[in-house]
């Protein structure tokens, strides 16, 4: 017996906590509009995101999502059964990713945005976007998916353009908005076509219609709809063919916002892609109709990782290099969908993609926050401007070295393990296409080592830029960077539980 029985809707707890925190920030700012209490606002946002993290971890440990046969509490469905929202292990796993990235961004932004006029608006927008991303993790119907996606996107557009007098920020925001508006229109048209072919928007209901063969006469509509849905996901995850916005938006945006978008927003994009394609569009029934979406993802994965890494290799601007590398990592995570062959056989590759997104959440957020630190110091944006920073800020630069080697996938760090699992997972599927994907993964990782180590070399080996004054040590930025570095290293001994959680999440999703 439970001492206190929570109602079913409380299963959506992490998202609700984030939403309440966002509203609380409005209240805090409205109490005294003439004066901004910066520590209180940043503190509220941080405590709120940490509370969401705690609730998500607590639910995971309490067995929400674990099948009842294994001593868990089973999946929770909200608004019907099967419902519009489902809280399973994958939803909680990605809520953890979103909440932890939000917490790091909230801490780091306190220093980065210290003299910004719209401090409270900034934090409310971050928390609202985080709410959207956490909701995306649990959305189980094309309606809730689209609404949650817009809830995550609309604040993001404003966040990128929040430095209103900075031309780069406004330009980045404009490009992000234009591509985003176009891709969401394409996606909602795709949703309408899938609805036309199946008559349902709820994911399990769509799968039932397809499995019964009732969608067979409309396979043309359905195929076009699926292709358009892929376009919507490609935008959110910054994959080819809707990746153009990423370099501009990340370069122009404030660095903490770039960290937030490239880690949390990308993870949220992947969670809806995983759920839609594995739950609603069973490959076994669709492939005979000519809608073989796994093959599309094979092509997208290879093209995305190649475009991202090759473009990153020729960048002179550090933030832009990280933006292209983020496109490359989207390509790695796409392997999870490319290797999908139905229940039995794809659990490993799908769980590897989830693990990669979690580890990426730490190492990539940390790397962008280091760029934020460099912008805070005002040292400049190119590789040469970063020369010799290690002599003045050894702690932050050690953390940077950890992030870079982990992103490249060098053995002692977390990034190695997730890439290793992706590689073995791709090989375990065994098809020729997946062997090509695995080969592309290795080649691209080797190439990425070149530009990641170039940054480490600039920071640690090159002579310092003459005339640079003593660099300050902003507490918030340092705390977030060091935390990200510690976690990037700590996931190494802790990889067993993470791998177990991801594997059981993937198994539950695919079954």
């Amino acid at each position, binding site marked *: 017996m439970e001492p206190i029985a929570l109602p079913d809707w409380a299963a959506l707890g992490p998202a609700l906590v984030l939403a309440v925190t966002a509203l609380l920030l409005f209240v805090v700012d409205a109490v005294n509009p003439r004066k901004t209490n910066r520590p209180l606002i940043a503190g509220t946002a941080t405590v709120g995101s940490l509370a969401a993290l705690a609730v998500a971890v607590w639910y995971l440990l309490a067995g929400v999502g674990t099948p009842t046969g294994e001593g868990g509490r089973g999946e929770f469905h909200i608004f019907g059964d099967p419902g519009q929202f489902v809280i399973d292990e994958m939803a909680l796993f990605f809520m953890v990713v979103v909440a932890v990235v939000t917490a790091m961004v909230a801490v780091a932004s306190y220093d980065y945005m210290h003299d910004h006029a719209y401090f409270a608006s900034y934090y409310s927008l971050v928390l609202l976007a985080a709410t959207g991303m956490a909701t995306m993790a649990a959305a189980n119907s*094309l*309606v809730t998916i*689209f*609404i949650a996606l*817009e809830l995550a996107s*609309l604040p993001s*557009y*404003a966040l990128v*353009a929040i430095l*209103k*007098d900075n*031309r*780069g920020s*406004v*330009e*980045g*925001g*404009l*490009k992000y*908005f*234009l591509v985003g*508006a*176009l891709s*969401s*229109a*394409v996606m*909602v*048209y795709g*949703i*309408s*076509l899938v*609805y*036309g072919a199946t*008559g*349902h*928007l709820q994911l399990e209901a769509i799968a039932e219609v397809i499995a019964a063969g009732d969608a067979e006469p409309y396979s043309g*509509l359905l195929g076009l709809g699926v292709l358009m849905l892929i376009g919507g996901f490609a935008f959110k995850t910054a994959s080819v063919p809707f990746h153009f916005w990423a*370099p*501009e938006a990340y*370069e*122009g945006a404030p660095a903490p916002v770039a960290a937030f978008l490239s880690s949390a927003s990308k993870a949220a994009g992947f969670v809806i892609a995983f759920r839609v394609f594995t739950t609603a569009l069973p490959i076994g029934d669709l492939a005979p109709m000519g809608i073989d979406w796994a093959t599309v993802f094979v092509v997208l994965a290879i093209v995305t990782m190649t475009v991202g890494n090759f*473009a990153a290799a*020729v*960048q002179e601007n550090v933030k*832009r290099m990280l933006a292209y590398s983020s496109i490359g990592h989207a390509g790695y995570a796409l392997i999870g969908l490319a290797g999908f062959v139905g229940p039995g056989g794809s659990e490993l590759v799908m769980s590897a993609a989830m693990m990669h997104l979690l580890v990426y959440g730490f190492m990539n957020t940390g790397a962008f926050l280091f760029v934020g630190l460099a912008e805070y110091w005002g040292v400049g944006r190119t590789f040469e401007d970063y020369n010799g920073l290690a002599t003045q800020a050894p702690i932050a630069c050690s953390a940077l070295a950890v992030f870079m080697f982990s992103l490249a996938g060098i053995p002692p760090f977390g990034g190695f393990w997730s890439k290793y699992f992706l590689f073995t997972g791709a090989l375990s599927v065994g098809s020729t296409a997946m062997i090509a994907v695995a080969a592309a993964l290795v080649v691209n990782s080797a190439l990425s080592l070149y530009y990641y180590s170039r940054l480490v070399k600039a920071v640690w080996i090159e002579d310092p830029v003459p005339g640079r004054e003593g660099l300050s040590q902003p507490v918030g930025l340092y705390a977030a960077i060091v935390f990200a570095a510690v976690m990037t290293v700590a996931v190494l001994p802790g990889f067993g539980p993470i791998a177990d959680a991801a594997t059981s999440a993937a198994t539950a999703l695919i079954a």
Partner: protein
Amino acid sequence: MTVPVEYYVLLSLALFCIGLFGVLTRRNALMFLMSVELMLNAATINLIAFAFYHGNLTGQVFALFAMALAAAEVAVGLGIILVLYRNFRDVDVTVPSTMRW
């Protein structure tokens, strides 16, 4: 006598293509926004026609949500276009090009 659903789909497809054409050719950010609205409305027509065809209300309800979201998107978009104008003295989407690779 009712109009067959195919005609609605053709109408929405035409509307979608007009919107897409506008997105690809217009340089004025406001015209771009209007073209995106056309594409969203094409989807709405589809949703309502299919809801009628399938005999359930799911599509109609989603159409209401889609319209509300479109309005919210325009609100954010106009805000961004406003700061664009303040910074660049123009709403031509090809003018801001400070970042190139």
